[in-house]
């Protein structure tokens, strides 16, 4: 059937619809850059969603655990062999995503007789200064978005990932006003928790167009914290260390969450 171009387009559209529906329940992930590094944070009940990829690169993902696992291992494998044959400094997120992951994901997506990757990923790479941080969102079809900004816009020191476009956009507009790279670590954790709450609320309500009230966000955050765990990691900007990733425990972060 897909010898006909129209059928192919239709098949792709169906596939897109199917994947979007599968991803729509994915719990949001926020990545916020500040002077001390980059914090990646989400709330969850079951599986791990934030991972170390290489010395300065971390990943958060939603989707099918099997697909996330294959993409995660491929990313680690590529970064590790590159770092081994050349140098850890030569491992770059930009090349990893643009030249390796994206083409592979695109071709899996467009070969309609094979299975696509049911995953949406957020990568962060910590730079020497907050301006040099890189955030990339890689979609199931290989599409890549950078820092939530276009060429014409100022670069934002955060990026988010969520089940739906609407949820993501509301999180972005929330962080645009709430987050500054000059913020302290505890302020960053708070903003990340609030951004997660905004995104998660939107997924629950379905058709929200505007940011919820602050009080509503705070209330929602406390409700969710009571029943879910905080999962987070930090890429530290500390130049004295080669490996910058460290996972942050729920216990470590709870203190900041209750204000």
């Amino acid at each position, binding site marked *: 059937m897909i010898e006909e171009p129209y059928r192919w387009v239709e098949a792709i559209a169906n596939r897109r619809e199917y994947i979007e529906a599968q991803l729509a329940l994915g719990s949001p992930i926020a990545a916020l850059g500040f002077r001390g590094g980059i914090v990646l944070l989400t709330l969850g009940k079951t599986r*791990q969603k934030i*991972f*170390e*990829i*290489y010395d300065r690169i971390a990943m958060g993902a939603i989707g099918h655990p099997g697909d996330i696992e*294959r*993409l995660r*291992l*491929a990313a*680690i*494998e*590529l970064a*590790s*062999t590159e*770092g*081994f*044959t050349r140098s850890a400094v030569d491992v770059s997120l930009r090349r990893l995503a643009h*030249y*390796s*992951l994206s*083409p*592979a*994901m695109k*071709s*899996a997506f467009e070969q309609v007789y*094979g*299975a696509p990757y049911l995953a949406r990923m957020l990568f962060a790479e910590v730079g020497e200064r907050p301006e040099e941080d890189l955030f990339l969102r890689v979609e199931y079809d290989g599409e890549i978005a950078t820092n939530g900004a276009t060429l014409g816009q100022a670069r934002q020191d955060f990026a988010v990932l969520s089940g739906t476009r609407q949820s993501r956009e509301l999180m972005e507009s929330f962080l645009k006003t709430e987050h500054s790279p000059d913020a302290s670590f505890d302020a960053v954790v708070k903003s990340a928790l609030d951004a997660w709450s905004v995104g998660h609320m939107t997924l629950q309500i379905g058709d929200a167009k505007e940011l919820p009230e602050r009080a509503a966000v705070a209330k929602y955050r406390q409700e969710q914290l009571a029943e879910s765990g905080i999962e987070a990691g930090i890429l530290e900007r500390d130049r004295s260390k080669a*490996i910058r990733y460290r996972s942050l425990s729920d216990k470590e972060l709870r203190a900041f969450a209750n204000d």
Partner: protein
Amino acid sequence: MEPSPVALDQNFSGAVDDFPALLRRKGLLAPAASITATHQPGNVHQTSWQPTEATTILAFKFSGGVLVAGDRRATAGNTVVYDRADKVLEIDRHSIMAIAGVPATAWEMARVLEHSFQYFRRTQLQEMSVDGKVRALSKLLRDNFGFAMQGVGVVVPIFATYDSYPKPEARLYFYDAMGAQFEAADYAATGSGSPAVRGILYYENNWGAKPLQKLHEDEAISIALRALDTAAESDTSTGGVDRGGKIYPLIKIVSREGITTLPEQKIATVFKEKVA
């Protein structure tokens, strides 16, 4: 269609590979050398070419963890190739590999090892156990044994690390060229100057002012410097302490907090007070 740049086939699973196997699959690491195929005694051209070799390293447990020290000389036959060689290498936050033997092979091994531990942590989402790390080095030595038999690439390392399980304690291992691992209770030394060093450490441990494990940091440093200087006295391949050039051995300490590299100034001070 062109092959995808990433091996993302549907059955792909990186979980089964260890890092050296991954490197071999990608053609980035030489296969393990065959032991029998090319070994012919007398085939090594001793006179025309000799590999660069690094010598004398020592390690012992003291009150603050494990001290690992190495002289700085690298030789080829009776030529000094380099007098600032680094034979005490950090593998991860708590592990040190010190090398005697051919640096070309040893540094590559250290590099493979360093990446192996990180690769394991990242893919398996947990730290490799100390037993796993000790075994990983053993496997690399075993893979290299064919080269060692051909007279090139002999490496005899010491591995020092800090274990948190089952109980927090410093662990010290030494190896032979075939990959057998031996856990040292108190001290280890390998390389051409090691007989002298072992003599000194044995003496200090049994009849010295106090056993090695009870030494404070400064006392431990002075014994390490004296031992290397003694080794250099009779072994031309060991650099010891270069008094004229002010080149001191490299000393690192593994403890619960991680690895500390002693600043040269500190070593120089102890040397002046206790050794020179």
